């Protein structure tokens, strides 16, 4: 990714080197440091990635496991960059999940979005706009080592190579049988103590991934205030360390009031929703409906060290699997209106999940 300097206020430091020593980190405005989410489109939407010290929460949809896609890419990205990882899940054997992590895509030249390399070998189409794609071409020609990129495109059909998983700082915890959360909290505190935030240069960043925190099979799942207290202490601990925690939870299992409390705790708040198969109304409204796997909503973007909110052009994105391998997020596009039907739909960038009534709300 091109390291273009974003517009900064006069109080930000001038940073000479950005990615030479630590490929997994990117410096952002207001003294924040980003790590990649593992999904290039999501990094772009969020303005660089997840800032260190922030708590990311993903609201799950009970009907679809799309939050796992986000978790997998997040965890794989950390392993590729050799960032220590702590993974907690309600399954009895969380280590098994590591076998499902995707591997970085081998090279970029089989992606149809980017520059088509066949132009060089066969037909030489004389188009003058090649000179404007200078950056992308360099990405092609130099055999860049996979590790030196900030964000990789993960191939969901191939599992992560063994050498990334073994011999790494990976800690897997099962939250199924924790009767009280105090021991879990201490475990997390020990992990986060490896990445204290101080003024000196940062050595490495840590990643925490917690899956389905309030899942009903966990013994503590009916202790609402205790769970909230755990999230609060996780948030406070992450704030004072160079780490990012991603927590997914199904909001339908919490009461509205507590769900709102959880949402307020998050620095970055995302939600994933399922798309019903064979929804004819949706197929008429949106282009590329058949390729869509689900919808991603961005509710809140982390605002650390600043008070200015981030207003995105669009907050709803479709999750697609390009070539059934790479996760991409696209903004929704309305299908061309069929001229034979008399109704006009107006302009709207977002669409509710079940538009069975056929009306768009905007």
């Amino acid at each position, binding site marked *: 990714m091109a390291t273009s300097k974003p517009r900064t*206020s006069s109080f930000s430091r001038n940073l000479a080197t950005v990615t030479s020593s630590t490929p997994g980190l990117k410096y952002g405005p207001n003294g924040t440091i980003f790590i990649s989410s593992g999904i290039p489109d999501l990094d772009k939407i969020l303005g660089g990635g997840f800032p260190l010290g922030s708590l990311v929460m993903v609201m799950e949809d009970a009907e679809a496991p799309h939050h796992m896609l986000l978790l997998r890419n997040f965890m794989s990205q950390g392993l590729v960059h050799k960032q220590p990882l702590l993974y907690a899940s309600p399954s009895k054997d969380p280590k098994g999940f590591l076998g499902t992590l995707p591997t970085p895509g081998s090279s970029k030249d089989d992606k149809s979005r980017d520059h088509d390399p066949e132009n060089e070998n066969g037909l030489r189409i004389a188009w003058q706009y090649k000179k404007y794609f200078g950056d992308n071409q360099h990405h092609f020609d130099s055999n860049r080592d996979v590790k030196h990129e900030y964000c990789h495109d993960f191939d969901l059909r191939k599992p992560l190579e063994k050498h990334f998983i073994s011999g790494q700082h990976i800690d897997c915890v099962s939250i199924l049988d924790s009767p009280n959360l105090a021991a879990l909290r201490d475990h997390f505190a020990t992990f986060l103590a490896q990445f204290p935030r101080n003024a000196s240069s940062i050595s490495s960043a840590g990643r925490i991934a917690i899956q389905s925190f309030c899942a009903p099979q966990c013994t503590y799942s009916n202790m609402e205030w205790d769970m909230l*207290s755990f999230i609060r202490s996780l948030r406070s601990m992450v*704030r004072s360390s160079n780490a990012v925690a991603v927590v997914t939870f199904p909001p339908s299992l919490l*009461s509205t009031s507590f769900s709102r409390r959880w949402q*307020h705790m998050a620095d970055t708040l995302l939600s994933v929703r399922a798309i019903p198969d064979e929804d004819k109304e949706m197929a008429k409204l949106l282009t590329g409906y058949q390729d869509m796997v689900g919808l991603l909503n961005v*509710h809140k973007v982390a605002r650390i060290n600043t*008070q*200015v909110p981030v*207003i995105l052009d669009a907050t709803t994105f479709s999750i697609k699997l390009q070539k059934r391998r790479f996760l991409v997020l696209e903004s929704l596009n309305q299908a061309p209106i069929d001229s034979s039907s008399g109704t006009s739909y107006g302009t709207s960038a977002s669409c509710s999940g079940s538009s069975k009534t056929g009306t768009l709300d905007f």
Partner: protein
Amino acid sequence: MDQRAPNLLDEALGLVDEEKTKPWPLSSRVVLVEDRVETSGAFVLHHLLKRALSPHSSNDVVVFLAFSQPFSHYDRVLRKLGCNLTAQRENNRFFFLDLLMSEFPDGDEGNKDGLVALYGKIEKVVSTSFQENKKCITIVIDDFSLMEVAANGATNYVLDFLRYCHTLTLAFGCSLVVLNHEDIYSSIERPALILQMEYLADILIKAEPLATGLATDVHGQLTVLNKEIRDEQGSSRNKICNFHFRVKENGVEYFYPGSKT
């Protein structure tokens, strides 16, 4: 942008004072700032902090109870607004209590880390400052819902704490500014906590998103309810103001709906 140029929020709060002869208009008053997930009201706290620590008077003391963000965050934000919190902290005008990791379980009266002890600390700072002739003391709590979590849901316990802080406003003339999230309570049947806070407050500032959705130029709307404004005739009435705002790094623009230039 002139720091002292009055804006709509200052006018609504009564902070416009050309002669600088009147005392701090917020003394002895409780300000409740409410916000939602979609629209954060933290910028109101930053604005009040900046006004409370204004350089022209050295009588101001702020006690800040931080549950939400560490000192570095506020330092950076206020620096862009033109206020140096580090210097104020060294001058003993800004007392920052980092309560991000603190727990306040109920029933721990003897515990030196409980809410009772916290209140004792605040009371000590306020009374010492009052004796040093610093008349404009402000207590800020950011944010109250996290204090509830720290107390593990003991609503009465935290409400007692709030009432004790309220007595400080009466005894020492200090002002109390509290931030809470209104949408947490709107779905409960008997939202006792938020109702009691709204009743206690003299000034209610609500930050909400626009009814029409997101916009890059207008970040939301602010409603300021100022109870018991005394006008020139001496009679008191309530005053409600509503306007839109746009948050920037070095300040916030306030404007009436439709008049954004």
